[in-house]
């Protein structure tokens, strides 16, 4: 049982590492800011998600597990919010309108 859990952890954390690598390679290879932001979601969401999933098999239930999941959700939330603001800031002029300039709907 212990061995199965350890193998699960090794596979999942390695797979997570692969997604972190994919995110980094994407960050370097993609042509502009917006496509690079997509590469970051790859690392944040799947990379960190798989690392957390792998570590769940090694941590204490339920507190350690909940804490790991909470950290993943916090990273997802901050990543999604920041990516939207960065995306809105670099959006080219033909998709920009005078009255609206960001993810906020109140027009500021």
């Amino acid at each position, binding site marked *: 049982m212990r061995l199965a859990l350890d193998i699960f952890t090794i596979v999942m954390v390695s797979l997570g590492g*692969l*997604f972190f690598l*994919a995110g980094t*390679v*994407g960050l370097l*290879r*993609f*042509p*502009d800011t*917006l*496509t690079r*932001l*997509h*590469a970051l*979601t*790859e690392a944040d*969401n*799947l990379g960190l*998600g798989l690392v957390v999933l792998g570590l769940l098999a090694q941590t204490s239930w339920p*507190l350690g597990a*909940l*804490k790991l999941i*909470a*950290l993943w959700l916090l990273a*997802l*939330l901050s*990543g*999604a*919010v920041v*990516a*939207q603001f960065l*995306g*809105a800031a670099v*959006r080219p002029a033909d*998709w920009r*309108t005078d*009255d*609206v*300039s*960001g*993810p906020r*709907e*109140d027009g500021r």
Partner: protein
Amino acid sequence: MGRYVIRSAVLRWAGFLLFWLLLAAPDLGAPVIDILVDLLVGLMAAAVAAWTSLRLLPPTPGSLRYGALLRLAARVLRNSVVSGFSLLPRVFGPRLSIAPGYLSYPVRLAPGPARAVFGALTSVVPGTLSVGTDRDGALIYHCLDVSQPVAEDLAIDETLLIETLGNKPEARDAVPRRKGEARA
């Protein structure tokens, strides 16, 4: 102030306190005075967080449909895995096979918190990123591959979110407008 405002203020404060306890994980073997001081910080932090959340996201009557919420979470998770794996060969391939472009998606959700949640949920999935609203109030998405059926996927996500929030999904009246600028 309605009753439900006080009720949700207390619920949010308790929720934030639980979250603080989870993250801070106070050492129960420490002297009682240390635990009490730690707890005081947590109580105050939770109160500030609850106050901020009430300012930014005023409570509204009605409750979430948890069944639909679960289905929405499962769908976002599934989408993330599917598009995450489909991105791998594109990123590592010798020819970077992406076709980035914009897509304007006319949302049915009202402006405000619901739409912000929709934007965040869909931006978490690799390949789609919400980058603001246009003059007609449609959400603008930047997609890594505009040849994928992004708008159709977004429509399913949106229907699930509308169900989660307890509203009936309406018939779709507008067809999403597509504008790709394919780049090698």
